[in-house]
């Protein structure tokens, strides 16, 4: 990283910190990119990703996605996304529900890309995690089998 870039980054952060109110500084991607969440393009991973990032071209790798191969219960599927990339945002998609996009994280200045969450999957499907670094997308995917779980009672 050259000095200028470094300064620029520092300045950007400084400005952000000053300008945003203490509590809700959120960039709400639901407001800024509504097409990624609902509507005809939201139903598939590729088109939803395009709505969110302007492209669906991703490079496999540099992102780790942990998800169970067989979910204990489709209503509680634990997923963890981690990466050492200096990502700005992280997004999670799946194709087991009516719409694809599950969540978008904005990585804060002191943030670490190591996000866990529990998601719902209505059926067997694919989970895709994307880390965005300066407009470039890195991804990882995993298949999760969802069955009507558990014997008895």
């Amino acid at each position: 990283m050259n000095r200028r870039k470094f300064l620029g980054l520092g300045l950007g952060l400084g400005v952000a910190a000053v300008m945003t109110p203490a509590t809700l500084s959120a960039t709400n991607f639901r407001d800024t990119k509504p097409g990624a969440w609902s509507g005809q393009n939201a139903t598939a991973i590729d088109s939803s990703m395009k709505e969110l990032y302007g492209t669906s071209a991703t490079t496999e790798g540099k992102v780790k996605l942990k998800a169970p191969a067989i979910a204990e219960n489709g209503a509680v599927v634990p997923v963890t996304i981690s990466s050492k990339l200096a990502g700005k945002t992280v997004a999670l998609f799946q194709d087991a529900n009516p719409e694809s996009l599950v969540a978008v994280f904005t990585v804060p200045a002191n943030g670490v890309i190591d996000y866990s969450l529990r998601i719902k999957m209505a059926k067997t499907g694919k989970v895709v995690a994307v880390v965005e670094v300066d407009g470039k997308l890195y991804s990882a995917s995993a298949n999760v089998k969802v069955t009507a779980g558990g014997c008895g009672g």
Partner: protein
Amino acid sequence: MGNKSRIKAKEKKGVTTAKVMAKHPMMSYDEAKKKGKKANFITSMVATVDGETVYEASTSQFLSKNPFVKFKFKGSNKGKKLVFTWTDLSGATRTDKKKIK
């Protein structure tokens, strides 16, 4: 509105790990239709320490009921308060705090 979020936050070697379980039905459109209720789910989660954002997520109806999230952030934060806020589709919001151990 809503019930208190369960928060656990612990710092180790300059990295704080926070685990939060928000209390929310996370009623998706499909579930709402089946139950004859109105869809409502958390659409945004933000966590701050000393006013600085340490976690920020835009979320959907596909997070589990009483959604659990875990995240990490750097910095010397032991003893400070982690402030966690969620906002749902209806506009309701809830903020809870917990000291970082």
